[in-house]
């Protein structure tokens, strides 16, 4: 009857003390936390020292949240261009010619080779283009990246398959994350978080960033640099590209690429020693240096075209062969522009254009105000509920209040250990759980009162109250948990923060409102031996 064994008391208290200790680092700021960790004697194993802390969401600490999407159409366009170049190369190598050239079709290209003998020579080479997808080692079956169809009259169609396309988008997202990380790191931004989201998106979160304009400028450019030659009159294989600062005027540029961004080993912003204009100095790798040297030797006096993201940014005349492997890009740039350009070149090109599909920025002032308001609301709610419970249940209300405080402490402890993110809706969740956490206590107390009124002794009344109320507590918390779990999987960012708090709150309430309260009541009973209920 109403017994609480010594080992059970120790276990309960131990769990609670550990839980509360875990919350300690979250009550300190960064410097205090570091000082605290340094103050711990070195013989204490590090896993014994609580060091993890709650992360404040961007809505509380201020910062920028930018959701980017890989432009799948742009990616496909690039892919088809590559495919066309490959097909052209193979046609040349096998000396097969296609009637009416290489046609671009939906997601691929089409050629027409009526001679069966030609096709027999051509097809094995074309098939090499199609790579298998899936993981051969794990035995996962996958199709090919490229489907090749041949009709009897000699029309050969190469198209990217559905699998090939998704595979390509997935890889593009991975590459983009790497490039974005390099770009953001080189601006000296602290603690950016860059994550994949869904199939084709990248979420960039930068705490403390007030105006994401520079960030967006940095991520808005593909950064695809090519060194080509301005075409001479009468040339056929040319692209008409816009010239920077020429009022949208387009110039013919040869399709052949001498060297590209991937051939650079370094790029730095600098000033031209003669004109004092901002420029970018760059250095080629061996392959790039060789090709660049050869091209500049052969084409003395012609104009080079430095093309960035399909725009000619500079077209210097080749005065002398450049064989040293380094050079400079000059144009009408501002200092900020050359800084960004150098970052773009150093970090490599994005595989495809990124589009900003969502942006949320919170200034540090609003964040501070929100924390302030959240604290205030939490304290007031706590005081309201504590007073209310005390005037209703007296001593038992006090027990419930202790359990309530432990409950909130444990939520913070669990969130610290999980390094969960506390958001403004999360704070709302904490305030709401203050109201709902005492529900379990209320259920138990009302039941006890009822049982005692029905003629039970105080001990058996308390016992029966706990036992009978427990089924209801499980039911009512499960129903709350269902809604919270769905919210967790569905929501993003701040709303998810609310769900986390709510789920943790449901878990800890069972420990505090049931086990801890029961222990306190059992101890109280053994010490005081009361004859009547105190409420």
């Amino acid at each position, binding site marked *: 009857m109403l017994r609480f064994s010594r080992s059970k008391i120790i276990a309960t208290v131990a769990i609670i003390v550990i839980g509360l200790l875990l919350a300690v680092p979250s009550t300190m700021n960064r410097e205090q936390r570091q000082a605290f960790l340094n103050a711990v004697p070195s013989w204490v194993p590090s896993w014994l020292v609580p060091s993890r802390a709650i992360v404040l969401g961007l809505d509380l600490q201020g910062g920028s949240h930018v959701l980017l*999407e890989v432009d799948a159409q742009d990616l496909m366009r690039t892919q088809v261009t590559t495919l066309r170049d490959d097909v052209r190369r193979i046609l040349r190598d096998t000396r097969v010619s296609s009637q009416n050239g290489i046609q671009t079709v939906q997601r691929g290209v089409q050629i027409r080779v009526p001679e069966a003998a030609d096709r027999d020579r051509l097809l094995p080479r074309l098939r090499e283009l199609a790579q298998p997808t899936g993981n051969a080692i794990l035995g996962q079956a996958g199709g090919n990246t490229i489907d090749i169809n041949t009709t009897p009259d000699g029309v050969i169609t190469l198209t990217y398959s559905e699998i090939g396309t998704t595979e390509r988008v997935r890889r593009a997202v991975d590459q983009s994350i790497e490039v974005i990380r390099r770009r953001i790191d080189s601006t000296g931004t602290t603690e950016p978080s860059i994550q994949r989201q869904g199939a084709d998106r990248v979420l960039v979160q930068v705490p403390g960033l*007030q*105006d994401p*304009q520079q960030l*967006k400028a940095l991520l808005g450019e593909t950064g695809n640099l090519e060194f080509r030659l301005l075409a001479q009159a009468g040339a056929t294989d040319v692209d008409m590209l816009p010239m920077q600062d020429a009022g949208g005027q387009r110039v013919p540029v040869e399709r052949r690429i001498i060297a590209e961004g991937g051939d650079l080993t370094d790029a730095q912003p600098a000033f031209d020693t003669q004109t004092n204009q901002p420029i970018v100095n760059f250095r080629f790798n061996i392959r790039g240096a060789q090709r660049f040297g050869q091209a500049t030797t052969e084409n003395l006096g012609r104009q080079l075209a430095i093309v960035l993201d399909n725009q000619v940014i500079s077209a210097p005349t080749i005065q002398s062969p450049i064989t040293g492997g380094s050079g400079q890009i000059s144009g009408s740039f501002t200092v900020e522009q050359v800084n960004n350009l150098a970052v773009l070149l150093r970090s490599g090109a994005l595989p495809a254009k990124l*589009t*900003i*599909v*969502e*942006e*949320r*920025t919170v*200034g540090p*002032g*609003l964040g501070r*105000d*929100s924390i*302030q*308001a959240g604290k*205030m*609301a939490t304290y*007031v*709610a706590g005081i*309201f*509920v504590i007073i*209310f419970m005390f*005037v*209703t*249940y*007296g001593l038992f209300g006090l027990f419930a209040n202790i359990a309530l405080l432990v409950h909130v402490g444990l939520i913070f402890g669990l969130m610290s250990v999980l390094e969960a993110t506390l958001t*403004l*809706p999360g*704070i*709302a969740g904490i*305030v*709401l759980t*203050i*109201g*709902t956490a*005492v*529900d379990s206590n*209320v259920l138990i107390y*009302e039941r006890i*009162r009822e049982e005692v009124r029905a003629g039970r002794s105080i001990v058996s009344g308390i016992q029966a109250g706990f036992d009978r109320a427990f089924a*209801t507590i499980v*039911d*009512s918390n*499960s*129903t*709350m948990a*269902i*809604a*919270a779990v*769905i*919210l967790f999987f*569905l*929501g*993003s960012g701040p*709303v998810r923060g609310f769900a986390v708090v*709510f789920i943790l709150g449901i878990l800890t309430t069972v420990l505090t409102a049931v086990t801890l309260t029961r222990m306190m009541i059992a101890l109280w009973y053994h010490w005081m031996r009361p004859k009547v209920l105190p409420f």
Partner: protein
Amino acid sequence: MRLVRLWPENSHFDFMRFRRFSFPLSAVISILTAVMLLTGGLNFGIDFRGGTLMEIQAKSGQANVGQIRQTAEGFGFGDVEVQEFGTAGEVSLRFPIQEGGEAAQASVVQKARDTFGTDYEFRRVETVGPRVSGELVQSGTIGVVLSVIAVLFYLWFRFERELAVASIIGTLHDIVLTIGFFVITGHEFNMTSIAAILTIVGYSLNETVVVFDRTRELMRRYKTMPAEELLNLSINHTMSRTVMTAATTALSLLALVLFGGQAIQGFAQVMLYGVVICTYSAICISSPMLIYIGLRGSESVKVPEGRAAAAE
């Protein structure tokens, strides 16, 4: 010390009688909600509608709303909603979604920053493109539907069929009335509102479950008691707990409404309303519903002719 009792001990209140008022009342509000939803619709926030929201604060502490409105309308980005809130010169601007896909939205922010940046501090800037807003609508709807299905399964396993049906009716009732709150007050409906609705689903069920747990217990004890009497007894037994929990929850939500700051106020107001609705529906909708559904399966409880007619 004399302790406070919100609800008298040993009450014998005839709650079932309320259905004569509560059923028509809820029906009228539900129909009104449906009509207003079809004619006017919800006041969607940028989460669901797309567009740009900005909250700026005057550095001088005194905002010139009229001037901001005039300037912002001159941008040519469509209808701008300009609203002052708070006491320290805070103004919110809401621009509609711009034609021209995802990239077009960025120009709104740039223009506003260039124009107001010197006199105002940008406290919050949110831009949601058309694709993301579409997805948020989708996931919000899926969430509410999923939660109802999940709850249905839970109740199916945990309770008898009749009790499960009655509680799901109560939960649906609470969802409809919460949406009614949004359409009638014109409160902004965004992702946080979905969080509020899901929390209300949880709370609603919680309330019903507490009463029905007792109903089930009493059914086993009093095998022949008529449904109406049994339900009245269940509610009277659990009423002191219902009142207590509603009070503590309402108190903490009140703290949020009063001190939680502008960003969280909307959520707290909806939740506060939700607590009232859920308590009401557990007592006046789900429980009396059982009189009509029948408490004990095939052995349905007979309702006296006169009362049934009066209830309709």
